[in-house]
């Protein structure tokens, strides 16, 4: 019997129901019909987005914000897109998402980041072994966000591990539009990696050919797929290449069709022009794959999407105005793409079934450097878009932004996160349908966050 969304929430709200689903295994929890379809869409902001300018307090805390960021980076209070019901505003570039917020389909999580365990400033200073490894290193922090092992090598990612626990499908329902990346690498499963533009055609290949030159040529190519005994890298590469050929045949019609019903929503809300940014093209193809979920046999889909360019050490903002410049342009691309995606999901009747959320290497220094930029830091803010999130709610705690203060590990505004990545993404994954029994596999460090008041953020319902 199909379980409605409300029923699913009611069921999963009870510990016994969670245990029951856990015993059934994730494949059972995920195998329900279209009525319980769910998708999570992770958008990684590569380079480490300075999201202390994404969401800004508009109450008495604004003064401390403005002081800490200084005129170099602080957004004027009047420029912010105010969020009804909460004392926060968004960077003006996020105005396209205001309708989603108003409709109760957007949330934000404050000062979230990589943590090995709850950490005070004193502990940070005294015990390096309680910190995540290699803080402030792009590559390591990307791997920790995606792999979620804070003090061990990351060889696989949370989306890949969630996929490990699902039944293998002809077309994987873990799909990256942002390239091959740690997040989607599983231990036993493989993702589908699709391009954000262009079609997938294997030149010269004709499965229906009957002429001898083509038939024998294709037979030879098939014979050369055998890489037995040549070592693991060759053998696995052979499998990947064969998989790529097969997936091209299956998915090309979906991603490169000239039109689809969802394309029309990816437009600039002011000018009406079709969006052209890479992140918008990725999300458009995500929408197409969601639209095709029935054809693909997908009752769950998880997507990885990326946007680059956030390593704004210099010229993050224009000299003339902090509301324009590199950051404003990147945010505008992101906001318009997410708004278009949300509208597309509404049109498909799936607004409540799809949750998009952002991630990034790290937050950036609250204190500006001399080139109107910011350097690598730690805690950061993120947004979640989708009809399932709790109405007009913000989670986590805005830090005391005193430079050198109780939450700063030095004097540049590098805030110790007060919400762990697991508490943030774990909540989304649980909503998505990762069974309780599988959570420790998908989130290896989850045990550090199971004692109240810590725990998965109550973002849904």
């Amino acid at each position, binding site marked *: 019997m199909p379980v409605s969304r409300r029923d699913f929430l009611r069921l999963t709200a009870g510990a016994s129901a969670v245990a029951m689903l856990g015993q059934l295994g994730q494949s059972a929890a995920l195998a329900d019909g279209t009525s319980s379809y769910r998708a999570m869409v992770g958008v990684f902001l*590569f380079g480490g987005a300075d999201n202390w300018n994404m969401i800004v307090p508009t109450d008495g805390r604004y003064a401390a914000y403005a002081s800490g960021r200084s005129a170099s980076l602080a957004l004027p209070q009047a420029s912010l897109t105010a969020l009804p019901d909460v004392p926060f505003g968004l960077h003006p570039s996020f105005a396209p998402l205001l309708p989603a917020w108003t409709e109760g389909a957007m949330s934000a999580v404050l000062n979230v980041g990589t943590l090995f365990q709850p950490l005070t400033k004193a502990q940070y200073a005294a015990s390096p*072994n309680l910190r995540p*490894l*290699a803080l*402030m*290193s*792009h*590559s*390591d922090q990307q791997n920790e966000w995606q792999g979620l092992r804070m003090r061990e*090598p990351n060889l696989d990612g949370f989306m890949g591990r969630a996929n490990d626990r699902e039944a293998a499908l002809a077309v994987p329902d873990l799909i*990256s539009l942002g390239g*091959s*990346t740690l997040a989607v*690498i*599983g231990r*036993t499963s493989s993702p589908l*990696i*699709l*391009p954000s533009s*262009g079609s*997938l*055609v294997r*030149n*010269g290949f004709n499965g229906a050919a009957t002429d*001898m*030159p083509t038939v*024998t*040529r294709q*037979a*030879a*190519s098939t*014979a*050369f*797929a*055998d890489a037995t*005994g*040549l*070592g693991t*890298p*060759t053998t*696995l*590469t*052979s499998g*990947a*290449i064969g998989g*790529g*050929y097969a*997936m*091209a045949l299956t*998915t090309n019609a979906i991603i490169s069709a000239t039109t689809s019903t969802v394309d029309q929503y990816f437009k600039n809300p002011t000018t009406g022009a079709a969006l052209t940014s890479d992140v918008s093209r990725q999300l458009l193809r995500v929408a197409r794959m969601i639209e095709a979920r029935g054809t693909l046999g997908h009752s769950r889909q998880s997507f990885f999407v990326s946007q*680059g360019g956030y*390593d704004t*050490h*210099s010229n993050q903002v224009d000299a003339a105005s902090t509301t324009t410049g590199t950051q404003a342009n990147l945010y505008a691309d992101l906001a318009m793409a997410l708004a278009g995606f949300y509208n597309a999901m509404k049109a498909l009747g799936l607004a409540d079934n799809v949750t998009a959320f952002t991630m990034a290497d790290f937050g950036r220094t609250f204190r500006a*450097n*001399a*080139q109107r930029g910011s350097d*690598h830091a730690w805690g950061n803010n993120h947004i979640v878009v989708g009809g399932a999130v709790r109405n007009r709610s913000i989670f986590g705690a805005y830090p005391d932004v005193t430079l050198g203060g109780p939450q700063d590990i*030095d004097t540049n505004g*590098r805030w110790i996160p007060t919400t762990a990545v697991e508490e943030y993404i774990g909540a989304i994954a649980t909503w998505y349908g990762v069974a309780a029994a599988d959570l420790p596999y998908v989130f290896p460090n989850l045990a550090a966050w199971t004692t109240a008041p810590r725990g998965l953020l109550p973002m849904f319902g």
Partner: protein
Amino acid sequence: MRRYRAATLLAVTTTLAACSGGGSSPTVTPSATTPAPVVVVTSGDAVRLGKQATFGPTLALSDRIAAVGTAAWLDEQFAASSSSYADLAVRAVPLNYCTAMVPAVSTCTRDYFSSTPVAMEFYAHAVGNSDQLRQRVAFALSQIIVASDFEVHTTAGLAGFDQLLLDNAFGNYRTILRAVTLNPYMGDFLDMVDSLKAAPNENYARELMQLFSMGVNQLNADGSLKTDAAGAPIPNYTAADVHDIARALTGWTYARLAGAAANDRNQLDYSKPMVANAAQFDGSAKTFLGTTVPAGATQDANIDAVIDAAFNNASTAPYVAKFLIQQLVVSNPSAAYVGRVSAVFANNGAGVRGDLKAVIRAILTDADARGIAKTGGSDGKLKEPVLFTLSLARLLGAKSDGYAFVTRDAGTGQAPFRSPSVFNFYPPDYPLPLGGGLVSPPTKLMTTATILARHNIAYDWTIGGDSRTEFAPLASITGATGTQLDLAPWEALTDPAKLVDTIDLVMLNNTMTSQQRTALLAAINAVTDPVPATQAHKRAQTALYIVAASPQFQVDR
């Protein structure tokens, strides 16, 4: 080695016998009926060296290596005159050069403010010039010390940066670190240029340590991770180290065109090293990585202190050694191999640290690198896209001005000098999916789209390779010569079995199975044409396509 070759020949003989039972009776090749002479074994090794030390072995190159031997061939390569981007360095022009042109010239931005001219020359050199090892090492260095047209657009600046790597590919690593630190292209890319004492920019300071020298964590001499008593990695540096190095690197700005004064009114010159701007230099004392720079030390002394601390760090030798091994030979080198090369980085035998010529020689003459194909569990290195495309082109006898490559490379995920960030196109520790802990850095670039892009280059440039638009000289490029392929050496192998033998040796290191051999021969024999030359051409195209697209060719062993 002899035994391995003998086993391969046995399989070949069996296959031929099976084939001759069918329709046409292929001629049994001499090499299959006579005992394996030593020179054949050496050829397998020569081909393998060609894969490691060049942009792809050709028949002629394999013969040359086999004829003179590894050591002498390396000496030839060390002595070969260098390819040069000198013609592009003169394109140092004011930033408004194109916008000020009347009438506007539509190709101006491409020719003066993009990586296209540099990439074209890179490909043209790689396809045709004889200083293959220098180019290959410079390309490897460009992936450890990354600056990218993805963010900084100046043709002259990029050409100068890559020239620096070519010039020093067989020089000393310290020389490279110092020159890169004061290079304006890098200075712009990682924000060291115009970093001010009031708020030093940490970008370059951090990546100099993390990516260009020692790496995040302390390494043992064999490249393995050093751990503390609790088993945790030990960081090489702290945030305070980064900050003080950033302070030591303040006070540098661009040279100005025509030697003009370094002020805001004069145009930036990306072709000359950065110059001191003493007013913005933080001259107070610094402490980093166990080094103290006293207050009042000169800017040059500060630079030297930073470079020495990075260069002499104990982790730098294994970090650079392992990276270069991964670039040239194998993705998962043994700790012992890394250790041997790392020791040469630390001391070339004459007390010199960082001697790249000695390091490259150690990498390529090591027992783990020499001999015929290695097919153990962890052996193998996926060809990165640039290497895949160039290896194919060299097998096809290409001569090129590089443009055809430029039209293809973005689709493969690797456009030279356009890495998406300082972290290169892929990290050195990227996991081989399902590989049980093995890494495969270039696998990060293997997606449905790039798998097809690689396949389609193989197909289009072989079977589809006659009179392609992408091979025609582009009218808008001055002096364009386009791309020409020459399959004559392959067409001369009119005996299909001989063609297959040669492809097996040069492309697959004699790892073709009997089934694959049978299938390849069938595909070749199915291609017929009444004109013998046409038939030979099409048969060569078909055979080269099938094998170039195969996983065996795409992964070097």
